[in-house]
């Protein structure tokens, strides 16, 4: 059993590598990566697991993600079962005790926000429904405020030496954010009652925030890919109840939206959905600025 000796020697060596000074954050989605950077500044090192071009429902527990989860000191995820297909695997396969459920290193945004569209009936005939409600909660900027406050506290718990720094960062960010909300709500008043067709129920918080009107979805049920039959029905419905645009997230397949838009003679708006979803959505401010600009372009 000589190899055991060699192996354990190698293991000890590898474990002894000193950890970096900055707090290691694993953000499940780009919006939380961006928020962690706003609040943590140079005291944190942020790894973002997904991009704006990926569907956060359908991610595999890839080796690269397990490796990053292994060294994470804080997981910042959406929760509400958005990451149910991959986050539990990362937790169990990373061998990282700090990020397990219930530990300070595990943070779910949905714990601090009242989710909407909580299903009264749980049945998969209704599609891939989330028992805890719609998880795409970052598109209401008021939710970002709540999550930012909670995340600031969490950063202070994990890295008490920098508590003051995180508080100052948070204060500064929230001041800018509140200002921006006022601006967006003013601009967004022009979107009130705008009838739109969506791809997936991933814009619900935005629609509710600025009181747009959702008149149809390309997916026949949440999580079920659009089918020709359903798109045909939707098109027929739009003849009676017209919409102004088809709005899809950057990661949604563009073809169903284009198919419908061409026939219904309305434009397709690809919104960034999250940070990195368009050239202008470089941070959380850019995300909302660009989303509003793209939608307002149709109204004018």
């Amino acid at each position, binding site marked *: 059993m000589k190899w055991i000796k060699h192996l354990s020697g190698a*293991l000890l060596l590898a474990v002894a590598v000193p950890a970096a000074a900055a707090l290691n954050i694993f953000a499940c989605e780009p919006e939380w990566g961006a928020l962690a950077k706003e609040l943590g500044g140079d005291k944190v090192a942020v790894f973002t697991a997904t*991009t704006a071009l990926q569907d956060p429902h359908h991610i595999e527990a890839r080796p690269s993600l*397990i490796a990053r989860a292994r060294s994470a000191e804080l997981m910042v995820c959406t929760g509400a079962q958005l990451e149910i297909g991959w986050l*539990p695997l990362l937790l169990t*396969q990373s061998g990282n005790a700090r990020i397990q459920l219930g530990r300070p290193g595990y943070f779910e945004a949905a714990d601090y926000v009242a989710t909407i569209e909580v299903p009264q009936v749980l049945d998969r005939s209704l599609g891939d429904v989330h028992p805890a409600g719609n998880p795409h909660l970052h598109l209401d900027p008021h939710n970002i405020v709540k999550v930012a406050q909670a995340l600031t506290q969490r950063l202070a718990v994990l890295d008490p030496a920098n508590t003051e720094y995180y508080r100052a960062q948070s204060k500064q960010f929230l001041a800018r954010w509140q200002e921006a909300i*006022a601006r967006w709500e003013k601009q967004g008043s022009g979107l009130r009652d705008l009838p739109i067709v969506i791809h997936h129920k991933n814009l619900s918080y935005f629609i509710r925030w600025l009181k747009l009107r959702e008149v149809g979805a390309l997916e026949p049920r949440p999580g079920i890919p659009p089918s020709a039959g359903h798109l045909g029905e939707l098109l027929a419905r739009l003849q009676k109840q017209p919409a102004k645009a088809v709005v899809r997230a950057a990661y949604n397949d563009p073809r169903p939206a284009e198919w419908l838009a061409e026939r219904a003679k309305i434009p397709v708006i690809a919104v960034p959905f999250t940070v990195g979803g368009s050239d202008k959505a470089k941070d959380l401010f850019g995300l909302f600025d660009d989303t509003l600009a793209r939608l307002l372009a149709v109204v004018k």
Partner: protein
Amino acid sequence: MFKRNLTAAAVALAFPGAVLAQDADLSKIREEIKQMKGTYEQRIQALEQRAKTAESGAGKAESAFNPAVSLILQGTYANTSQDPNTFQITGFVPSGGEVGPPKRSFGLGETELVFSANIDPYFRGVAIAALTPENEVEVEEAYFQTLALGKGFTLKGGRFFSGIGYQNEIHQHAWDFQDAPLPYKAFLGGRLGQDGLQLRWVAPTPLFLELGAEASSGDQFPGSDRNKNGVGGGSVFGHLGGDIGSSYAWRAGLSYLRNSPQDRAYEDVDSLGGVVTNSFTGTAKLWIADAILKWAPDGNAARTNFKLQGEYFRFKQDGSLTYDDSGASAVFGTVTGPFSTDQSGWYAQGVWQFMPRWRAGYRYDQLRYGSVTNGIVNNGLGPTAADFPLLTNHSPSRNTAMIDWSPSEFSRLRVQYAADKSRIGVTDNQIIVQYILSLGAHGGHKF
């Protein structure tokens, strides 16, 4: 609208003098009130939402702590040109697993019942029972796994699928073809599930590096039940993996498995047609090299993606074989001689999702007979090569193509065609239609 006007009116009434004098102030107050109203509306909505969530009563009943439960339904319709009951992989010691094609006509696959939950802050528990079409219940996996060891270590104990190779740990319902590749069938009885302990360690590096070691009772093929104290089988494995840009992900691994089977028996037919029992005692060593590459544009697999997967196996046995025909022909009785094998096998498969819901795949697998040194035959102890028909020099191969359709993440229908040359001298043309449905808790998307 009406409400807002009313509020404005109220404000106007409250400060009659100021209104006319200071328009700017009024609009400021209006704005503030509007904001307050907005905030309160949101708070009320939030409270309503909470009340609703509480109503659904998730936290009240005892059942709130029930483990996640899921059920996998599987079934087949099979059309095979050869009788599935005569299935064998000629040239290779039978592995004892259920490795043949499904029964002809309609047939039920294994119905899997999966339970999993965190036990406490320290352990997670998983149990998977397979209800077989023969109306038996098999414990496929039942293990605990540590959550709190930290430093990248995870200890698993109980019955579990070994971490060797790539496909071994993947459950049948997540396979890309209806059955296992030939080397898995020949060298591991379909797959290696064992009773024992497993320790894994993930390195704290951005590049994925994982090392693992297992100790087991070694009672599954290529081992056998030994009725001995101590460890009967052991394995070590290492995995490397990562991303190349945002569109590619890969993993490569090396594994080594060692077993010491004792009187591991299989039945064959001697030259007179009598049933003989051959039993092997010695050591069995298996090396596996595996690699998988996945592609999805920008890492978004929803519309289209491609998966390339391959594994190479080298299998060596060294020990003695006992030939026993006393139960039937009784020509030679019991004869024992030295026995060793050095065989190999590999497979490669590609699966392409060419549009949402639709995937097509192709697999080629092959076994190499290599060398089989049978001391009983070579040393002229009595029985000749004709008394060991299963060990006839033959290198099986197979071509498999499949196409599957998944209406949702929870259902899949598949049609598979295979030209299987596992048996010497014949090709078994198999057409298999299969369904795989999953009910209950959402399963994980394992890489």
